[in-house]
């Protein structure tokens, strides 16, 4: 691998990211998958970095999930998005940051469609007015939340309590990055580093002391595939894609995976359990899986947030070996204690995948 070759490509795909004043919208599914990630995004950006990140409780799904599940036509998604933009405009913001990769892709696709077909934008404006008497400006800047963490990665590194370094060996932690398909595959120029060799997550790993490991199926989709997964009969081929990725990763001794998409993170984590039940195979050391993190979780970890406050107990794959590796202090007994130390009860353990 010629590192300079990748750097050359990264230089070609940079985008302007304003340093402050962002209007933040959440994902419709992340709250359930990794409930602390979005909350910690606001904590990290507001409290640790001192940025103005504003959100309003009135915002909704962007419609992207329904659009990708064939449940609504794109025009409906456009009208939902128009309302979201109206909320941003009413709040006095012009930089828009969604926390979901499919939302980001949905916004990019809609803005690009309106640029090509202005008459469609006019029609959506009329529909929005008829539906709820709102008007909107298009965002001046659109970024995904992983773009912002990337943008602030060095500030985070300066404040970091831990580095992605193996405490025993002093070696950088070996990490793979996985980018959600809708981040840049549709519009490579909108992603940091482009679509073939995205830099958005690799940049965080490097900046926080880890080593990025490339593997042949790195660019392959996690397999979620929206309407495919949602039909139970089709799930076999969803999990097969994740399986293909883990098989390809196997020889590299990868110690953790960083993702920027709600679905990817969820499925690459949960499918390791399904694969282990069906094949008996696990991909981490000593019967464990390979932990899969969101970028907020990883940023939170290096900044010294308590792993259980970051919601890491909701991961299928045990994160403890990773925490021990980089030396994060945590209380193993507190893993399944909720708010006010309420006992959440321990989940049933899988047959083959080692968990705590």
């Amino acid at each position, binding site marked *: 691998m010629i590192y300079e*070759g*990748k750097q*050359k490509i990264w230089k070609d795909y940079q985008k302007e990211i304003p340093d402050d004043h962002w209007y933040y919208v959440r994902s419709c599914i992340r709250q359930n998958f990794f409930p602390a990630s979005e909350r910690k995004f606001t904590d990290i950006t507001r409290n640790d970095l001192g940025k103005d990140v504003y959100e309003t409780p009135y915002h909704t799904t962007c419609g992207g999930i329904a659009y990708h599940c064939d449940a609504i036509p794109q025009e409906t998604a456009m009208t939902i998005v128009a309302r979201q933009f109206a909320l941003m405009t009413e709040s006095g913001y012009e930089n828009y940051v969604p926390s979901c990769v499919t939302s980001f892709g949905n916004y990019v696709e809609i803005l690009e469609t309106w640029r090509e077909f202005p008459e469609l934008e006019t029609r959506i404006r009329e529909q929005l007015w008829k539906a709820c008497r709102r008007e909107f400006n298009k965002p001046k800047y659109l970024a995904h939340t992983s773009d912002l963490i990337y943008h602030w990665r060095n500030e985070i590194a300066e404040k970091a309590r831990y580095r992605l370094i193996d405490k025993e060996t002093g070696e950088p932690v070996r990490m793979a990055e996985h980018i959600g398909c809708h981040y840049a595959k549709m519009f490579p120029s909108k992603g940091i580093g*482009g679509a073939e060799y995205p830099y958005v997550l690799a940049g965080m790993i490097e900046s926080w002391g880890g080593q990025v490991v490339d593997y*042949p*199926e790195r660019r392959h989709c996690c397999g979620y595939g929206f309407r495919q997964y949602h039909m139970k009969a089709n799930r076999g081929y969803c999990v097969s894609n994740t399986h293909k990725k883990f098989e390809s990763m196997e*020889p590299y001794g990868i110690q953790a995976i960083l993702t920027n998409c709600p679905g990817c993170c969820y499925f690459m984590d949960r499918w390791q359990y399904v694969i282990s039940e069906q094949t008996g195979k696990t991909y981490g050391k000593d019967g464990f899986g390979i932990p899969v993190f969101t970028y907020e979780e990883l940023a939170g970890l290096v900044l010294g947030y308590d792993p259980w406050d970051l919601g890491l107990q909701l991961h299928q794959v045990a994160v403890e070996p990773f925490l021990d590796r980089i030396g994060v202090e945590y209380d193993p007994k507190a893993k399944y204690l909720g708010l006010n130390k309420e006992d959440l009860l321990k989940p049933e353990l899988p047959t083959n995948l080692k968990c705590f």
Partner: protein
Amino acid sequence: MKENVVIIGGGIAGMEAARQLLLLGYHPIVVEQKDRLGGHVGQWHRLFPDMASAQDLIRGLGEEISDANIFLETKVNSINRLRDGYQVMLSNGVNVACRSLLVASGFQLFDAARKEEYGYGVYDHVITNSDLEAWFNGKPDVRIPEVPENVGFVHCVGSRDLKAGNLECSKVCCMTAVKQAIEIKEKFPSARVWCFYMDLRLFGKKYEDFYLGAQQEYGIQFVRGRVSEVGETADGRLQVKAEDTLTGKPLRVRLDLLVLMAGMACNPEMTRLARMARLDIDSDGFLKSLDNIRSINASNRPGIFFAGACTGPKTVPETLAEARAAALDIHRYLQKGL
């Protein structure tokens, strides 16, 4: 005193035209940007179909044009219309007045790094057709393993590629791939070689013989399907994906060397010249001939003629024939003032 004819470009088109113009009694002035004559062919090793030495061709042409005025490492700064010709100002300070000039500025090899999915410049064992010829010519290349077991050739890299801005077929790459695949098999008889193609365009004299020979004598396998993605394996080899469109199945293959058949793209120098001399550009981005059947050598400007790949991808013999035809067109023009 012999009449000046300015030839822009010292590749095979410019050299052959200079040779003909000398024979016709003119004084050709060859302007070449690089520090040597011969252009792309000068970097090549062997030429199909007879496997002739490219170096011998360039040496021979060079010897025959020693009486021409040759400016190396020189660019054209401006071309201004005079009453009955052109004033050409060169970057070396020389000013030439001429009634006719020949554009032979050739092509630019498509930058294979632009097809990011193939990882040229990113993965350790991805090279281009041009790199392979340089290696055949003795230039060391660490990307080529000592004894490669599996070798792949990707046809149409940056050709027939609307998205890359190069819709046209580059004509020579299919045949070059077959030639180079055979040469690889000759160097590494134990290697398995696959050529990944969309169509095999083997139109020229003896090209089909090469294809048949590649299958029959060398066991080279032709897979109809364009490579979609290249990755690097843990042991530093390449993992290549394509669809075998004839069986309708996706393929994966581990390779030790992948050769990208970079196509012929417009030369930016040609675009600059076109602006300077107000020459028309065709829809493919190359210079526009007066017509594409009878007057391929003629431009929209009086006294300015074309030869070679500045009007589109050409083979070596086509380029040489065009250069001779252009010399004759120039001769007639200067005789009759057509």
